[in-house]
């Protein structure tokens, strides 16, 4: 890479100035190697474009992990707790009843007598 790229010339209507560099690579391996080099050199405003995801590229580029897992967990929790709380939440858990009346329900007696 040319040393002049570190200090772009001042914008001037007659002089071209560098705004960035684009490079094209022939294989995923070459791209990974270049990505590691660029990341190690400390560049911040750069990206890699590929036609398919390359395993390990986001780690090589030190991309900050997305918060999507937390969003999905939150949505899942809302989906679970919301309707459950509408139904009564912990009050609707089938905790066994100890009262005598509840062990002799009319419904259960008729069911027992109707089998076979």
């Amino acid at each position: 890479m040319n040393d002049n790229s570190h200090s772009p010339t001042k914008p001037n209507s007659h002089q071209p100035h560098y705004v960035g560099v684009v490079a094209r690579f022939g294989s995923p391996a070459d791209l990974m190697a270049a990505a590691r080099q660029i990341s190690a050199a400390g560049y911040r405003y750069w990206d890699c474009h590929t036609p398919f995801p390359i395993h390990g590229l986001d780690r090589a580029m030190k991309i900050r992990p997305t918060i999507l897992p937390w969003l999905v967990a939150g949505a899942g929790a809302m989906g679970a707790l919301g309707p459950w709380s509408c139904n009564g939440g912990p009050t609707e858990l089938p905790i066994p009843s100890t009262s005598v009346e509840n062990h002799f329900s009319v419904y259960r007696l008729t069911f027992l007598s109707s089998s076979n």
Partner: protein
Amino acid sequence: MGLASMISRQPEVDNTISDPTSRPPLVIGQHDFATVTETVARIPERPRATLAWKVSFAVAASLAAMFIALTGYLFVTGIGIWGNNSPVFWGFPIVNFVFWVGIGHAGTLISAILFLFRQHWRTSINRFAEAMTVFAVVCAGIFPAIHVGRVWYVYWLAPYPNPMGMWPNFRSPLLWDVFAVSTYMTVSVLFWYLGMIPDLATLRDRATRPLPRLLYGLFSLGWSGSARHWHRFEKAYLFLAALATPLVLSVHSVVSFDFAVSLIPGWHTTIFPPYFVAGAIFSGFAMVVTLMVPAREFFGLKELVTLRHLDNMNKFILATSFMVGYAYLIEVFMAWYSGNKYELFTFLNRALGPYAWAYWTMVICNVAIPQLFWSKKCRTTPWMMWIIAIFVNIGMWFERFVIIVTSLSRDFLPGSWALYKPTIIDFLMLIGSFGIFFTLFLLFCRYLPMVAMAEVKTVLPQAHVHHRHAAEEHAPSELEYAR
């Protein structure tokens, strides 16, 4: 000219040989990234559809139009135009619903479950299968919606606060179906669409005409292939796969509960959830094979959807055929072992009663004919597997017919027994539902990328980061796999 020119005339290369020392290629024909794109993208990029597509679309659209017209007739006249009556209160409409929603499950299995199991061979067929799922669920969802009678009140199925002070019956699997199937629809559409975004971007970048560029551009949501995009994409894809996986098991279990929670002999049995789920995967894979064999031929996709892919799908069909066959046996055994005279009669009635023709059609189509897939020749010969898959589709429709109609026509009280009399409208709406399915499916084949190009590229040997040019020497050559 004619049909012969429409068939791709690609030779069949056999990559089904199992060699423990090397993985067989999943893409044959010395493809690189550019040729994979070209093979798939040239299909939607055709300026004019082929004659075969136009004829097929005309037939499918006519059947779909007939279905819509009959639905209008149903809304205006009422459920009496169907054959539903005492005692067979549930007839063709629910048979069709269960048939279509079962077919959808194979697509989600291929897309989601095989993804979690890292089965790379799914990449050539997952887009196609997931599209089949989405359209099958559309067809399935139509039947419960239109069968309610007063269809202008169908929104009563939703739990909204209302002046009647009524809520839907949350204890009924019929309502659980509303939530299960609509959840399944939502997740399937999202998963299918998310996976398509990079490929829609490819079509956008290749588009030369303004309307395709606009539409593909709109639906590709500004995708640029950036590593940051791929990072989020892969996370989202993983989550949707993980969320769709339990749906494969739960949705059809809930559908089976429509029957299992009743008291009717032949319905009230705990085998139903696994029996229905296995049957769903069975019929779904058969439908994927039914669609894929002609599609790979007509669209020239044989090098991406190889004999190995078809072989693997046929093995799934054979395995699930065994599960369904086991369910048939255990139902009969339990009917006898239980000592319950009603249950035993129901199964004798199925095999020997007035619907014995339907029962034995079901057994032959679902249990006997798939045994042909023990033969490698049958599993790897497209025209043979297509015929077997058609029989499975027929058999699985009859399975739902047998379960529903035989148990309802003769249940506890002989004085209530009667046969089911389907009307011509019942038959026409069944055929019409195929029209809707094929209309949507043909539109998918014409305008959308049928194969997940980006995913197929990841299974090429050149895609591995540690692949160097030297590695190409180790990749098995096509000659080793040619028959």
